[in-house]
C-alpha cells in the first residue's frame, strides 16, 4: 500500500469532511418533523454503510485466506474487522442519540438496529479472540473461520429479527424511511457525507492494513535473520 496514495486519501478525507460538515449544518435545511436532530442522520448512515462494507471485506478476506493461505489476506481481514468495529460502534451510539429525542427511547429492537448490534457482538468476540491468541498462522485461521461464520449468519439474523418484529407488537412503530429526504439539498448533504466517510474509512483501513502488513513482514524478517544465524551455527 503506497504511502502517496495514503496521503492523497488523507487529504481527500479532510476536504470532503469539511465540505460535509458545511453541507450538514449550513446548506441542508432543517427537517420539518424531527427538527435539528435529524442532522445526525447525515453521519449516522455513512457510518452504517462503512461498517457493513468493512465486515463484508473481512469475510471475503477470510475466505481468500483459507483458500490461498497468504498472510496478506489475514492482515486485510483483521484490519477490516477492527476498522469496521470502530464504525459499527459509532452507528450504535449515534443511532441511540437520534432515537431518544425522536422516538423517546434510547434503543428499540427494530430489525436494523438489532442486526447491527448482533454484528457488533460477533466482531467483539472476534476482537477478543485475536487479543487472546498469539500472532500465528493458527490464529489467522481462527479469525477467518469466525469472520466467515459471522457473515454466513447475517441473512438468518435478518430473517429472524424481521419476523420477530412483525409478530411482536412494537411499542414504537418505526417509520420506514422516517427520514424522508424531501429536499434535494438534503440528498446532496448525505451524498457528500457518504463520500467523506468512505474516504475516511479508506484512509483508516489503509493505515491499519499497512501496519499489520509491516508487522507480518517484520515477523518474517526476524525469522529470516534467526534462520541465517541458525544456518551459520550461532545461537
Amino acid at each position: 500500500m503506497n504511502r502517496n496514495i495514503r496521503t492523497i486519501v488523507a487529504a481527500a478525507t479532510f476536504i470532503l469532511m469539511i465540505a460535509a460538515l458545511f453541507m450538514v449544518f449550513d446548506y441542508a435545511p432543517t427537517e420539518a418533523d424531527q427538527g435539528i436532530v435529524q442532522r445526525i442522520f447525515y453521519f449516522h448512515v455513512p457510518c452504517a454503510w462503512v461498517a457493513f462494507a468493512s465486515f463484508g471485506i473481512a469475510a471475503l478476506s477470510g475466505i481468500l485466506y483459507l483458500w490461498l493461505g497468504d498472510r496478506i489476506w489475514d492482515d486485510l481481514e483483521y484490519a477490516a474487522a477492527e476498522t469496521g468495529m470502530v464504525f459499527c460502534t459509532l452507528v450504535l451510539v449515534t443511532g441511540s442519540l437520534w432515537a431518544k429525542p425522536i422516538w423517546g427511547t434510547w434503543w428499540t429492537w427494530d430489525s436494523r438496529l438489532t442486526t447491527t448490534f448482533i454484528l457488533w457482538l460477533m466482531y467483539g468476540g472476534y476482537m477478543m479472540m485475536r487479543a487472546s491468541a498469539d500472532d500465528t498462522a493458527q490464529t489467522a485461521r481462527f479469525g477467518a473461520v469466525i469472520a466467515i461464520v459471522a457473515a454466513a449468519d447475517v441473512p438468518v439474523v435478518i430473517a429472524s429479527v424481521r419476523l420477530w418484529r412483525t409478530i411482536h407488537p412494537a411499542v414504537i412503530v418505526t417509520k420506514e424511511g422516517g427520514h424522508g429526504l424531501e429536499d434535494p439539498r438534503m440528498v446532496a448533504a448525505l451524498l457528500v457525507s457518504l463520500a467523506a466517510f468512505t474516504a475516511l474509512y479508506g484512509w483508516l483501513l489503509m493505515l491499519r492494513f499497512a501496519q499489520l502488513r509491516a508487522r507480518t513482514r517484520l515477523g518474517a524478517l526476524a525469522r529470516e535473520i534467526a534462520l541465517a544465524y541458525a544456518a551459520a551455527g550461532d545461537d
Partner: protein
Amino acid sequence: MEHLGFLFAAYAIIFSVIFVYVVFLWRRQAALDAEVSALEARLHALKDAASKSEASPRPK
C-alpha cells in the same frame, strides 16, 4: 432548536472516537518502530560478529 445537545453529542462522539482510534494506531506504529530498531540492532550485531571472524562464513 430543541435537542441541540443530542446533535452536539453525536458529532462530538463521532470525532472523538475516530481521534482515539488514530491515537491508538499511532501508538501501535511506535511499537512497530521499536521492533524495527531491535531488528536493526540484531542485524548490526550480526555484521560485527562477521567482520571479527572472517574465517567462518556468516550471513550478511
